[in-house]
């Protein structure tokens, strides 16, 4: 018999009703407010197992068990109906391998002594935290060159340690993370420090990790370039004796760098990192207490 929808006039589908509803006009614990009086509710109780993720979204296909019956959740719900008034143990899981890729098992995968009351539905809710992933990428600034073997530390909802891999992506992959904000810190090895540096404070970043998203956190290393400082005796065209060069850095610290003696025709060639270029050459002092002028700085 056609049952047209009052809105679109197409035939409506019959909803699934597993029990008959009492239509007799006797009183009961049913709705009474204003115009909301409806059929008397069924006498039996029920348990609706409800599984959601930590975003509040319904999770399907999770096995739910009450008494000896196991049913998967559909759109987050698995109804066990009808049930006698009593107390029941409700379980979910075990999660399938596919589900374990997406969710952490709940802290408690069961609930004991769940009460079922006459004419009521008891909703038992389980929350599964979603798993998320984060890729930490370390690359050379301005280049498509990725840097392997960089130590990476995560702190936040989870604490993890990793290393960028040598697969051409320079990434340290982290999976099975809880969602949230992580502090990501990279640490350069002594060898790496010879070739790269990070700006002050740039060794840590905040990364927001969202389930289902390809979360990435990129660190850019600046390459260290060596420059050459040439020192020569302008007044006498004489050999430059060995000595040292005093560098005053921007942080007001000073550093002395020694250089060897040079012959008259060949000025002192003095290599230093461009990273140190953020400094002023204060003084060039030789063993003979002579002061020399710096006549040239060029990239090595």
């Amino acid at each position, binding site marked *: 018999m056609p049952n047209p929808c009052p809105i679109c006039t197409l035939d409506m589908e019959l*909803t699934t009703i597993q029990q008959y509803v009492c239509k007799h006009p006797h009183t009961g614990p049913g709705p009474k*407010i204003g115009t909301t009086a409806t059929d008397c*509710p069924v006498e039996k109780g029920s348990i609706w197992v409800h599984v959601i993720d930590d975003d509040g979204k319904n999770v399907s296909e999770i096995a739910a068990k009450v008494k000896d019956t196991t049913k998967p959740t559909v759109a987050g719900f698995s109804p066990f109906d009808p049930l006698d008034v009593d107390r029941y143990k*409700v379980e979910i899981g075990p999660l399938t391998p596919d589900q374990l890729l997406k969710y952490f098992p709940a802290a*408690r995968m069961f*609930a004991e002594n769940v009460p079922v009351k006459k004419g009521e*539905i*008891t909703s*038992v809710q389980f929350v599964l935290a979603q798993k998320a992933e984060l890729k930490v990428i370390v690359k050379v600034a301005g280049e498509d060159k990725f840097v392997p073997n960089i130590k990476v530390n995560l702190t936040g909802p989870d604490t993890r340690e990793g290393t960028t891999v040598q697969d051409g992506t320079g990434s340290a992959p982290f999976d099975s993370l809880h969602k949230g904000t992580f502090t990501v810190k990279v640490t350069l090895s002594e060898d790496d420090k010879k070739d790269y540096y990070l700006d002050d404070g740039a060794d840590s970043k905040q990364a927001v990790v969202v389930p289902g998203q390809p979360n990435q956190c990129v660190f850019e290393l600046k390459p260290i370039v060596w420059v050459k400082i040439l020192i020569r005796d302008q007044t006498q065209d004489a050999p430059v004796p060995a000595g040292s060069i005093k560098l005053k850095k921007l942080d007001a610290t000073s550093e002395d760098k020694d250089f060897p003696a040079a012959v008259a025709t060949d000025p002192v060639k003095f290599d230093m990192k461009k990273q140190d270029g953020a400094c002023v050459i204060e003084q060039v002092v030789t063993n003979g207490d002579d002061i020399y002028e710096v006549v040239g700085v060029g990239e090595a």
Partner: protein
Amino acid sequence: MAASVAADYPDRFRDMGDAGIRQFINRAIQTGRQYGIETEGAIAVLIQLMIYFGEQFELSPDRDWAFEMLAHPVAPPVLRISLVRDRLLSRSQGRMVTQFRPQE
């Protein structure tokens, strides 16, 4: 309205007190207003459904459908709330849903 709600659902409102019940009803009125549901009868249905299935119908498998129906652009408000009531109560067979958390 507050008195009848408290009288009909004493368990649900035992701890809320009179002020809590009034706040609950005000929230129901606000929710109804969002969907153009403003008559006393329609608000009464909405209150009943919020008592039965949670303020966001979060205890009903038909929550998403219900909000889609409430926001239907053509159907009149009374019809919309009536269809929502029919669907939600049909699923629960007229029974109220009480939440139980595993850690309780």
